[in-house]
């Protein structure tokens, strides 16, 4: 089943509350998928800096020495902030490739997401527990997406949790199941994309990344997804400054959106939106099948 949520703020006055609002939305969707949960929060980028969110199954053994281990690759710019099983590495934007190469040589560290704005936290467990261990409710930001998973296409693991991020500041959450992901994964591998799981959603994320790397904007990439992805899907995607929604042409998977002067919100069900400020007077609608919706700051 899966539950997905998204919140894109138009009113900067709400930014301090982003984590709290998104957390509330996600916890409400717990009964749509209690296997694992994840959230991506887009904060304010710092000039010339980038962020890499990493996860480790042995955080106590790995994270204390991580900053020192990355000192050379980052030119001394890396700063590590640990949050439970995740750590956010802040570094000079020009050193991302070198630090990623250094991280690739560390078997106990997995990269969750990279970008100037995004931080991604995901683990096996209930949304309320995942949100608490990463202190999501206190995080400010401009937009974010979240997912609570009922696994269908791959194992219940941290890496199988959503959001999936396959490009800088890009991430995607999915409700549904894709039927042509194995074939598409082979095609994308031939184009040089790499995959960390057997998950169908990772293929969708990588597809969008590859299309955008080829020159499309997110809206065009999502139009392409309607042609090239087979199966059921409601996708909510985030980019550094944008927020998009698309459903397959059959549109079996539920979706509700709300828009006010202050925000655009997405939920698998209206329940997820019911406690947002001003929801009583919001424009509430179901996104049409095979139609791309996109907002940008």
């Amino acid at each position, binding site marked *: 089943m899966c539950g997905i949520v998204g919140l894109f703020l138009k009113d900067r006055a709400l930014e301090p509350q982003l984590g709290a609002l998104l957390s509330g939305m996600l916890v409400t969707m717990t009964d749509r998928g209690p296997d694992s949960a994840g959230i991506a929060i887009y904060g304010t980028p710092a000039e010339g800096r980038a962020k890499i969110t990493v996860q480790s199954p042995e955080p106590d053994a790995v994270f204390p020495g991580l900053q020192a281990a990355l000192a050379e690759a980052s030119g001394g710019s890396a700063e590590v902030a640990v949050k439970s099983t995740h750590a956010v590495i802040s570094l000079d934007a020009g050193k991302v490739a070198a630090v990623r190469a250094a991280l690739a040589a560390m078997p106990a560290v997995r990269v969750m997401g990279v970008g100037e704005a995004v931080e991604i936290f995901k683990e096996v467990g209930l949304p309320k527990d995942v949100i608490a261990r990463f202190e999501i409710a206190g995080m400010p930001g401009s937009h974010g997406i979240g997912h609570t998973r009922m696994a269908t296409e791959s194992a219940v693991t941290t890496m199988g949790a959503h959001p999936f991020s396959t490009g800088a500041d890009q991430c995607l959450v999915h409700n549904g199941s894709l039927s042509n992901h194995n074939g598409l994964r082979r095609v994308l591998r031939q184009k040089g994309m790499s995959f960390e799981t057997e998950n169908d959603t990772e293929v969708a994320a990588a597809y969008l990344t590859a299309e955008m790397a080829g020159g499309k904007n997110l809206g065009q990439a999502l139009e392409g997804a309607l042609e090239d992805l087979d199966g059921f899907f409601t996708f909510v995607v985030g980019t550094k400054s944008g927020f998009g929604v698309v459903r397959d042409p059959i549109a079996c998977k*539920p979706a509700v959106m709300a828009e006010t002067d202050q925000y655009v919100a997405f939920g698998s*069900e209206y329940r997820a939106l019911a406690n947002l400020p001003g929801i009583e007077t919001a424009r*509430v609608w179901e996104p049409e099948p095979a139609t791309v919706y996109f907002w940008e700051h």
Partner: protein
Amino acid sequence: MPVIDLATTPLRELNQALHDAATPGHNDTEFEVLNPKGAHAVAVGVAAPVDIQVKGSVGYYCGGMNEAASITVHGSAGPGVAENMMSGTVVIKGDASQYAGATGRGGLLVIEGNAASRCGISMKGINIVVRGNIGHMSAFMAQSGNLVVLGDAGEALGDSLYEARLFVRGAVKSLGADCVAKEMRPEHLQLLESLLAEAGITDVKPQEFTRYGSARTLYNFNIDNADAY
């Protein structure tokens, strides 16, 4: 009149109170439900002729299996509103999500806003009146009853339709397999007039609608029709 606030009262207590209303010795005839906030299964399986006013939007299956009750939702409804309704009335003041009135066997479902995809799928005797538009694959395999739409219909209206009658006032994006436009005879105008009156709609005329129904070519398997299934 009992007022049940779902912000403080569990949903089970609401539905139990509504079920109790059908047993001897219970005299409550009107209920008000506050703060539904998209809750699932609000007022399901009610078997008493009581009036239920829901103040807010509901989630999945509101009014499901309704028998005799009059339920009004002052908000929007999630998927499966009035699914398998037997009799009574369900009125949605806002929009309805997917498969509104699915498999309904009787009663009247009125949606004052728009309905999404698969409205009236497999309907078996229910009457559904939608003031706005309906989405794709509505009345798929509908067997009997009437679907009245004042706005437009999405793709594949009435696919594999049996004997349900569909009346659409606006545009139909496409007709499903075996669904065809049909002549509006006097008895259909009369039927439509009474359905509109029942739904409290007085500002449109039956003559503005087109009737759609089954061409009846798919009733029995015929190899020449294989492409249409």
